[in-house]
């Protein structure tokens, strides 16, 4: 481990975002605007808004971080900076942890802002504290990041990288309990949804909407999400090759 290289990488990734005002604005404002839109759509069905709103609060960071990371790391691969970095004294995990740290910070800001808008301005009813929402959103953002990083290894162009969004994210959205509760799914689909990490993130946020207690089941859901993050990062690290054909 070379923690100085890790912090340098996190600082560098944040610096890149700082130069890219439009991406930064999209990252922070789009979730808030979409929640506003949702509130408007369900203006007369506040129960539906209360049921779906929290799920979207954690799905936005997941989806957005997936795209941002897969494109960012693909760019590192195609413009040669990754190969150059790997000739230097930086470990693969320092590199990945640098990304996780930078995007994790962005996710905290994004989730806090979106939660504040949803709960404070749009009157979303959540039993649990806003900070629990932020914790779940952060776990989801890092999960999206880790999966995006892994997906980028299988893309050669940015076109392909963006196509991984529907391929990797949409099945999880369909099966995570957002549309139909997981218990009501066909047996096979329920089994599939049991192995998809996003299902546990949604279970966790469902728990926060109905209770302010930190129960074992809630922590268990978060632990499964964390384990999936580690798994995706380990697989992602395996795709970072110092030597290539």
């Amino acid at each position, binding site marked *: 481990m070379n923690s100085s290289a890790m912090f340098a990488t996190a600082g560098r990734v944040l610096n890149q975002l700082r130069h890219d005002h439009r991406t930064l604005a999209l990252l922070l404002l789009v979730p808030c605007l979409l929640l506003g839109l949702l509130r408007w759509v369900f203006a007369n069905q506040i129960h539906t808004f209360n049921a779906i709103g929290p799920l979207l609060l954690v799905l936005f960071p997941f989806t957005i971080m997936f795209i941002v990371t897969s494109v960012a790391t693909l760019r590192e691969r195609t413009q040669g900076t990754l190969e150059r970095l790997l000739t230097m*004294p930086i470990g693969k995990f320092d590199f990945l942890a640098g990304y996780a740290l930078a995007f994790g910070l962005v996710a905290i800001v994004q989730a806090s802002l979106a939660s504040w808008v949803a709960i404070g301005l749009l009157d979303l009813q959540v039993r649990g504290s806003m900070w629990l929402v932020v914790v779940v959103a952060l776990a989801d953002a890092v999960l999206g990041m880790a999966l995006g990083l892994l997906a980028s290894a299988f893309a050669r162009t940015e076109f392909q990288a963006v196509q991984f969004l529907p391929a990797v994210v949409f099945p999880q959205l369909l099966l995570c309990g957002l549309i139909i509760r997981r218990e009501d799914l066909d047996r096979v689909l329920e089994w599939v949804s049991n192995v998809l990490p996003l299902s546990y993130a949604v279970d966790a946020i469902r728990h926060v909407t109905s209770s302010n207690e930190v129960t074992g089941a809630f922590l268990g859901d978060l632990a499964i999400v964390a384990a999936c993050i580690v798994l995706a990062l380990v697989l992602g690290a395996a795709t970072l090759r110092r030597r290539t054909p």
Partner: protein
Amino acid sequence: MMNSPAITITGLRVRRGDRLVIPDLSCRIPAGTITGLLGPSGCGKSTLMRSIIGVQIIEAGTVDVLGLEAGSPPLRARLGYQPQTPAVYEDLTVKENLRYFARVLGAPAGDVDRVIATVDLAGHADQVVIRLSGGERARTSLAVALLGTPEVLILDEPTVGLDPVLRRDLWGLFGRLAAGGTALLISSHVMDEAERCQRLLLMRDGYLLADEPPGELLQRTGTADIGSAFLHLIDRAQQEATR
């Protein structure tokens, strides 16, 4: 007379895809010397350089750098490498790029300003790389390779598209680095740069046609310039092949 070798390559064979890029190559690159690697585009120059840096998977042979196997971890802070593509972050400024790579390398704090001045980019230090010209991007990339005063410098076409005055200054810098003991391997497809090198490797189709100082090469081939010497060697190799 040859300085002690910084790089020793023995029986190197590299395949990329289904193409045998380097069939069997052996050579030594001395410390304290500028070695020029010349040859047409596609002859295997970059592949050879990547093998020395240790990022290329090789099929056979050994590449030994400063007494260690190429690519081994202790070498990572002792080698400077400028790949053929700029390989810097387009959305960062020149200075931010260098600060980042300097921190990863553990280079001293003053190094960033030093290398910016060396490649004559002080006036563009706070500009985002994407707004720079191709030559300025290449210089940013060269500056990264110079960070931390490496013992071995592998530069893949560092002077392409540069202003003649800057080219002269950079070759002056390379000479001073060599005099200080650095081993430099510099590729080029411009023959007139060959005369600035103390040793030459002429490469074609993955084979070395020559590995000697430019003066000896001219004498051996009885030619007046490196370009003609190269042609002479190619003709002779073809005659031998058809015989």
